[in-house]
Structures are given as structure tokens and as C-alpha cells.
């Protein structure tokens, strides 16, 4: 047990190292020179060279081969190779990582000119986290009961309906879902000439009327907002009214994001319950005359929920990743929309930072899962 934990903990920095190297190199070799972008077309070679030096772009990219020679020389002189180590880590990659560890991911060059990337992400991350978390809660609270019911009543009409629904909602692309649902909820009156009432257009509408900072004031704590309309921010008197108007517009994006969670949870719950119900210990429990309820809750469910814990853990790691299409379609100022904007503007600093943050969240979630699993499943404690 301890050996596994130690091995996992040692493995974490290795994964993060490779992930960051690959991401950094891909971003580095992507087209576009940040200095050229900053200075424009009329910059003199002199200025370019000076700025390049100032930002450290003239340093070696990843590994400085000269450092090894320096180390050999220093060692042959009987000194500790301190200068060599310093030179080794004075490359663009290690400088970037050192900055990133301090929360400095560089600056936006085009779209959000001169804004620090870390700040851009930090102000959008809470929004994405809240949206995804609500979607996940809905997904779990609907998906698990559906999965249990279909698992118990398999091959009935109910089972068939739910399975078809989950298969369709996994397969239907957001590309198709977004225009169709928006059409149904918001624009129907345009085509049929019917006023669909005040709520429907609001549900389908875009959040374009408020900017990101408004959104943060309004929903900065979407959960408290939902519970008690949150704390009134100081400077903006009518935030509550903005919130009240905007809230229905979150129904559709949350619904769409929760569809995927519902489908995955239902399918996994059904499959693992069916598998567990076929096991010998369930038959034993039934054979010794336990009530069916007790068999299900005490024997079957506790085992069937183990794979769910895995999916839940990975989903928690995935909360950081905003949905590109949903957020950009509905104008939600989250991480996903930022990523799409960055894609269009070819903002590699933003992309690299996002890839790194999402990858770190995923790897840490995976590690936490591996550490927690032996506590949930006693069988795993005996391995090795």
C-alpha cells in the first residue's frame, strides 16, 4: 500500500514535467513571434533584438548544452558546479515554469492587450467551476437513480427508453443541440409569429448584456446566489435586478452541460449494478434469506458504486475545463469561452496556460483517486 502511494507521488512530478515540456514546446514552435506582434511591422531589427533580450527570448529554449561543458570545467577545477547549474536552469522553459509557479503565465498579446494571462484565467475560472459543478450535481442526482432503476428493471420498456435517451444524448453533438434548443426556447416567436411569453426568450438568450466583471459581481458565488441571492456588491446598486434577469438564461446552458453527465452516470451505474447483481456474493446474500432491500443496499450497491467514484473523481478534475461550445454560444464569460477567443486570436500564451492548468487538475484528480480508492475498496489494499 505505502509503496504504491509513494510510487504515485513520485510519478506526479514526472507526468507534470513531460506535460509542461510538450505544451511549452508546441506553443513555442507555433507560428507567430510574440516580439514581432508586440512591436508591429515597422520595428527596427535593433528594437526587436533589444526586446528579445529583455524578455529572455534569446536564451536557449529547453536545455542549454553549454551548461554541461561548464559543469565539466568547474568539476575539473575542484569546485561545485554552481554556475553550471544556474546556466542549465536559465533557459526559456525553466524561466516560464518558474514564473508559472508564481502565477505569472505571461501576457495577452492581441485580444486582451497587455493583460496578464493568469488574471484573465483567474477571473473566468470561478464561473466555469460553478456552472460545471451545478451541472455535475444535476447529473449525479438524476443519473444515479436512473441507472439503478434501469439496472433493476432491465429489458423493460422503461429501461429501453432511458437507454435510448442516454445513447442519443451522448451521440448528439452540441453543434446540433445548441441551435435546436435555442431555436425552441428563444426564437420560436420569430418564425411562428407567436409570443412565447416572457420566460422562454430569456431562457434561450445570450448573456451578452453583461461583461465578465459584471458576471463575477453577480454570480461570484453562483451557489450563494441561488440560495439567498448572494451578498449585495457595494458599488453596483441594481445587481440583484441584473442577477434576476440573467438567472433564467443559465437554465439552458446548465441543462445542456448536465445532459452528458446524466448519460454517463446512468450508463455506468446500470452496467456496474448489473455486473454486481450477477456476482456470487449477491446470490449468497439472497440464499441466506436477506430481504431484497438489504441485499441491494448492503451488498450490491456498495460494490456497484466503486466505478462511479472513479468517474466522479475524474469529473471533479474536469470541472476546470469549460465547455468551449456552450460557453461561447451563450456568451458565458468562462474558461471555455476564453479558450475559443484565444484560438481565434492565436493567443498561444493563453492556450499554453489553459492546457497546463487543466492537465494539472486532471493529474492531481487522478492521484487523489488512486490514494482514496484503497479506503473505498478493501480488495485494493492487499495488492503487492
Amino acid at each position: 500500500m505505502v509503496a504504491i502511494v509513494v510510487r504515485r507521488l513520485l510519478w506526479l512530478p514526472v507526468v507534470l514535467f513531460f506535460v509542461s515540456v510538450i505544451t511549452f514546446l508546441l506553443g513555442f514552435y507555433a507560428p507567430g513571434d510574440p516580439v514581432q506582434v508586440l512591436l508591429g511591422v515597422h520595428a527596427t531589427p535593433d528594437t526587436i533584438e533589444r526586446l528579445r533580450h529583455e524578455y529572455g527570448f534569446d536564451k536557449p529554449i529547453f536545455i542549454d548544452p553549454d551548461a554541461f561543458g561548464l559543469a565539466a570545467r568547474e568539476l575539473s577545477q575542484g569546485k561545485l558546479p554552481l554556475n553550471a547549474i544556474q546556466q542549465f536552469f536559465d533557459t526559456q522553459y525553466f524561466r516560464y515554469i518558474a514564473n508559472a509557479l508564481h502565477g505569472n503565465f505571461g501576457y495577452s498579446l492581441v485580444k486582451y492587450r497587455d493583460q496578464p494571462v493568469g488574471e484573465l484565467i483567474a477571473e473566468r475560472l470561478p464561473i466555469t467551476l460553478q456552472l460545471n459543478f451545478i451541472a455535475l450535481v444535476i447529473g449525479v442526482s438524476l443519473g444515479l437513480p436512473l441507472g439503478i432503476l434501469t439496472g433493476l428493471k432491465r429489458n423493460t420498456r422503461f429501461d429501453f427508453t432511458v437507454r435510448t435517451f442516454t445513447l442519443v444524448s451522448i451521440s448528439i453533438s452540441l453543434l446540433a443541440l445548441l441551435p435546436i434548443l435555442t431555436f425552441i426556447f428563444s426564437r420560436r416567436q420569430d418564425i411562428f409569429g407567436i409570443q412565447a411569453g416572457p420566460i422562454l426568450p430569456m431562457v434561450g438568450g445570450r448573456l451578452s448584456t453583461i461583461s465578465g466583471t459584471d458576471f463575477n459581481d453577480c454570480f461570484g458565488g453562483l451557489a450563494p446566489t441561488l440560495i439567498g441571492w448572494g451578498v449585495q456588491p457595494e458599488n453596483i446598486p441594481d445587481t440583484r435586478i441584473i442577477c434576476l434577469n440573467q438567472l433564467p438564461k443559465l437554465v439552458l446552458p446548465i441543462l445542456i452541460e448536465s445532459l452528458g453527465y446524466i448519460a454517463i452516470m446512468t450508463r455506468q451505474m446500470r452496467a456496474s449494478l448489473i455486473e454486481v447483481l450477477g456476482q456470487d456474493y449477491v446470490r449468497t446474500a439472497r440464499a441466506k434469506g436477506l430481504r431484497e432491500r438489504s441485499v441491494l443496499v448492503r451488498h450490491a450497491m456498495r460494490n456497484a458504486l466503486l466505478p462511479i467514484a472513479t468517474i466522479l473523481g475524474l469529473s471533479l478534475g474536469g470541472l476546470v475545463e469549460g465547455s468551449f461550445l456552450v460557453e461561447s454560444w451563450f456568451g458565458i464569460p468562462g474558461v471555455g469561452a476564453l479558450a475559443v477567443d484565444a484560438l481565434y486570436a492565436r493567443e498561444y500564451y493563453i492556450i499554453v496556460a489553459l492546457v497546463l492548468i487543466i492537465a494539472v487538475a486532471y493529474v492531481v484528480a487522478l492521484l487523489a483517486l488512486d490514494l482514496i480508492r484503497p479506503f473505498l475498496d478493501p480488495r485494493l489494499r492487499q495488492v503487492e
Partner: protein
Amino acid sequence: MTQTTLSEFQRAEDSSRMRSPWLQIVRRIVKNKFALVGILVIFLIVFVALFANVLAPYGYDAQNLDAKEQPPSSAHWLGTDALGRDMLSRLIFGARSAVFVVLLVTTVNLVLGVPLGAIAGYYGGWVDALIMRIVEILFAFPGLLFVFMIAATVKPVILGWARANGLADLARSGYLDYAVVIIALGFVGWGGLARFVRDQVMAVKVRDFVLGAFAVGVPTWKVIYRHILPNALAPIIVLLSAGMGFIALSEGYLSYLGIGLQPPNPSWGNMMAENAGRYWRTFPQSIWLVWVPALILTSIVLAFAFLGDALNEALNPEISD
């Protein structure tokens, strides 16, 4: 009395003729109506893709600026877009793009994933550890963003290579977008397949017939290729058929976001992106142009999902009671 015996005899005869495992699988799939519909949809798309230049009434990039933003008519069955291009023709050529990308990405995944997975599963030990660690690192990247980074970095490399080798026309034509999409999706997709093949091979390699093959002196590569892989094949086929739909979908996403196939190339994704912009302004006509590619994409993913489910049940009859 004689009637019954005769028909029973015939049934026995039939079932003996149907005893070939592949025929049984085909029969089980054909019995499943959803799978039949799925196969039909897939065949239709492949047919349209193969004969796109015969079926399409216009070229995919033929503009007619006198007839732009037309509603459906007899000349343009699905209307025209903002540049006066015939929507039906673009959809038909879009099928060609989709089939091309799906086939090649699947091939790349197979070529990378199956041998690496088989080697990892067969040899175990540090080889297995190395390959699986690489897969783990690959999984840590967020899919779409990682694909974008690969596409952005690969594209200038390919373009530069084409120009340096006197293929400037090719570099200008936009055909290289396909290479970019295929490389990016292929590079990201093989990890799952490799892990899956590895698990399958690990389960098969301890069975008696494999030990028997070694005992009579069959060389290792031949044992893997002739004895282990065919027996691990069924679940791999299921995984591939379910995955093809999602490759088509990923191509749609990439092109929708402007990373994949660029606009003159026909792709359902970039058609939606182009027309969705107008969707908010001139609503009633152009909604059509967004929905049709979206529904085609969805039906393809569904078709492959149904086919995958049916294949799963047909190849593993014991789990579907």
C-alpha cells in the same frame, strides 16, 4: 406429421449451414433493427462520398453571386449560402471530407495503437510500464486544446516542407488541412486503443492455445499476430466502430472552431460555423443551413453507436442474455 419432420430437418440443415461464426455474427446484427438502420446510414454516407462528383449538382466551391442566400428551390434543393454556393453540393462533398478523415484517422490509430498495445500487453515489465506511462501522459492533456496546439504547430511545418519541395500549389490549395487534422486527431486518439489492446492481449496470452503455439515452436511475432491478436479482435472492433462516429464529430468540432478544414474545403463543421454567424441576423432562411449539417453529423454518430452496440452483443453473445 411428415410436414413437421421435414421442416425440422430443413431447419437443422439451415443451422448447420449458418454455423460459420462470421455468418452467425452477421445474422445477429441483421436481427437488430437499430443496427440495420445504422449500417444503412453508414453505407449511404460512404456511397455519397464515393460518388460525390457525380451526385453533386454543382462544385463545392462554385459561387453564384446572383443567387446567394436563396431559400430551397428546384435549382438549389437546400438553398444557397452567403457566397451563393449550393448547399446540397457542399453537404455531399462534406461527406467525402468526413469519410476521408475518419478512415485515415482510424488507420493512424490502428497503426500506432494496436502494435504498441500488443507489445505492452505481451512483454509486460518495463516495456509495458514505458508505453503505459506515455499513454498516461497523453491522457493528461485536455483533448481539444491539445489537438489545436498540435494542429497549429504542425501546419507551418507541413506548409514549409511542401514549399521547399516545389509543391507550392499544394500548399496553397488547402488539401494540407486534411493532413493537419489527420495528424492531430491520430496522434491524440491512439492512447485509448493501445491501453485497450494491451488489456485484451494480457488476458489472452495466458490461455492454453497460446502456450501450445509456443510449445510447437512458433516464433513470437507470429504467435502475437496469428494467435493472440485475432482472439482479442472482437472488443477492438467494437471500440473502433464506436470511435469512428466520434472522429467524425471531432473533425466537425475542429472545423467549427476554425482549426480543422478551412472554409473553401467542404466540411460540415465549418459550414455550420459560417452559417451560424448569419443565424442570429437573418434567422428563418439560414437556420436551415445550420441544422442540416448538424443533423447529418448527429445521425452518423448515432449510426456508429448503434452499430457498436449491436456488434458488442453479436460478438459477445454470453453477455446479452
